[in-house]
C-alpha cells in the first residue's frame, strides 16, 4: 500500500511544476498526509480514549505540514510539537468574549474598535500575536484559503467513509 502511494507520488508530479494550481498542490499534500496518519492511528491505538483529540492533532498537523510556505504554519507546528495535549483552535470561547466586547464598545472610537478587531483576528491565526498588523493581514488571507481547502478535503474523506 505504501509502495503504491510512493509510486503514485512519482507519477503525479508533473514535468512543469508551475502549471499545477496551488490549491491542488495543497489538497494533494494534505490528503496524502492525513489519510495514512489516520490509518496509522487505527492500527496503533488500542483504546478509543482521547480519540477525538488525537484526530484533531493529526488534522492540524496535516494542515501545518501541507502549507509550509507560510509563516502561520510554522507557529502551528510549534504549538503542536510542544504540547502533548494538542491545543485545539476552539472558537467557542472567543465567540463569547467577542460578543461581550462588542456590546461594551458601542460608543467607543472607531480606531479603537478596529484595533480590537485586529487583535481578535490575531488570536484566531496561529502565531498571529507575534506578527505585526500588515503581515498578519496577508497571512490571514492564505490561512483562510488553506482552511477552505482543508474543509473540502475533510468533507470528501468523511463522505467516502460513510
Amino acid at each position, binding site marked *: 500500500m505504501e509502495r503504491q502511494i510512493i509510486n503514485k507520488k512519482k507519477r503525479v508530479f508533473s514535468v512543469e511544476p508551475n502549471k499545477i494550481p*496551488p490549491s*491542488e498542490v495543497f489538497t494533494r499534500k494534505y*490528503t496524502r498526509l492525513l489519510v495514512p496518519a489516520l490509518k496509522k492511528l487505527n492500527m496503533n491505538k488500542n483504546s478509543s480514549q482521547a480519540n477525538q483529540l488525537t484526530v484533531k492533532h493529526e488534522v492540524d498537523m496535516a494542515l501545518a505540514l501541507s502549507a509550509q*510556505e507560510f509563516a502561520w504554519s510554522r507557529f502551528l507546528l510549534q504549538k503542536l510539537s510542544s504540547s502533548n495535549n494538542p491545543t485545539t483552535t*476552539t472558537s467557542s470561547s472567543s465567540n463569547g468574549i467577542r460578543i461581550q466586547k462588542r456590546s461594551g464598545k458601542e460608543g467607543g472610537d472607531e480606531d479603537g474598535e478596529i484595533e480590537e478587531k485586529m487583535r*481578535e483576528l490575531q488570536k484566531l491565526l496561529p502565531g498571529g500575536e507575534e506578527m505585526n498588523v500588515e503581515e498578519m493581514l496577508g497571512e490571514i488571507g492564505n490561512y483562510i484559503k488553506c482552511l477552505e481547502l482543508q*474543509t473540502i478535503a475533510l468533507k470528501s474523506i*468523511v463522505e467516502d467513509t460513510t
Partner: protein
Amino acid sequence: MLEGLVSPENLSLSSMDMSVLERLKWLRQQQQKQVVSQSSDNSPELLQILQFHESNNDELLQSTFSHFQMLGSGFGPNPNMGFGPSREAMDGCISRRSSLQMDPVDTMGFMLKNSEENRTISSKNKRKSEVKRREEEKTEKKIKVAAETESNMKGKSSMSNNTEASSDTSKETSKGASEIQKLDYIHVRSRRGQATDRHSLAERARREKISKKMKYLQDIVPGCKKVTGQAGMLDEIINYVQSLQTQVEFLSMKLAVLNSELELALHAYFTNLPVVNASKPSIMVDVPLFPLDQQGSLDLSVINLSQTTSIEAPSASWETQSRSLFNTSSLGFHY
C-alpha cells in the same frame, strides 16, 4: 563579441519604454546570468564588460551607485529574512548570490547582488502585475497585488520586509533611478495640500498597504463586499475564520467517530482472514494494489467472494465498511 552581446538586447529593449538606466541594468543582469552559468574563471571577462559600460555612462552610474548603496544598506539586514518564506523559489537565486560574493571588485559585486535580487523579485512579480506597474508608475503607491493566491502570499511575505526597510530612503529618489527601484521601494507622491514630512508619509504608506490587503481579503471572504468600512469587514472576516475553524473541528470529530468504527471493522476483518481459504487472502491482499479505475467493481466482487467462502458470514455492515476502507486508503489518488 561585446557588440554581439549588446545589440540584440538593445533592439528588444528599444521597443520597450525604458530609460537608459534601466536598459543598463537589464544588460548587466543578462551578462550576469551568462557569467554565472559559466565557470568562475570568466569573472575578469565580466569585469571587462562592466568597465566598458562604466566608461560610457559615468554620471548615470554615479547616481545609481549612491542609490544602490542606500538600497544595499536597506537590504543589509534583510536579505535572508525577506526571502526565508519563499525558500523553494529562491534556492537557485540564493546559491547564485553566494557565488557572486567571491567577486573581487566590491562595488560591482554589490551592484550585481542587488540587481540580482531585483531580477529575482522582478521575475517573480513580472508574471503578476506588469501592466499595473506601468500604470501606477506615475501615481502614489506601488504594492504588488496578484491574482494567484499562493504566489501572492510568497510575494507579500517576502516583499513586506524589504519594502518597509527601504521605504524611508525612497522619498528623495529621482524619477530616473526610481524607475529601477520601483519594485523595491514604495513611492509616495504627496497630493496637494497634504503634509510632506516623513512621519505622515510613512503613516500614509502604511495605511495604504493595509487597505490594499483588506481589499484582497474582501475578495476572498464571501459576503464581505456588501459591508462597507473596515470594522464591518473585519467582523465578517473574523466570523468567517471562526466558522471555518468550527467546521474543521466538526469534521474531524466526525472522522474520529468513523475511524473508531472502521478500526473495529478492520480489526475483525483481518482476524477473520485465517478462517478463509488459503487462496482467498492473496486476492484480498492484492486488491489495494489494483489501479484506481478498476477499484469499484473489483472490490465488490472480491469481497463477495470472501464473504461466501468464510464460514462465519460477516454482517452486511462489514462489507460496506471494508469497501469504504479501501476507498479511504486510496483517497489520496483522487487528487
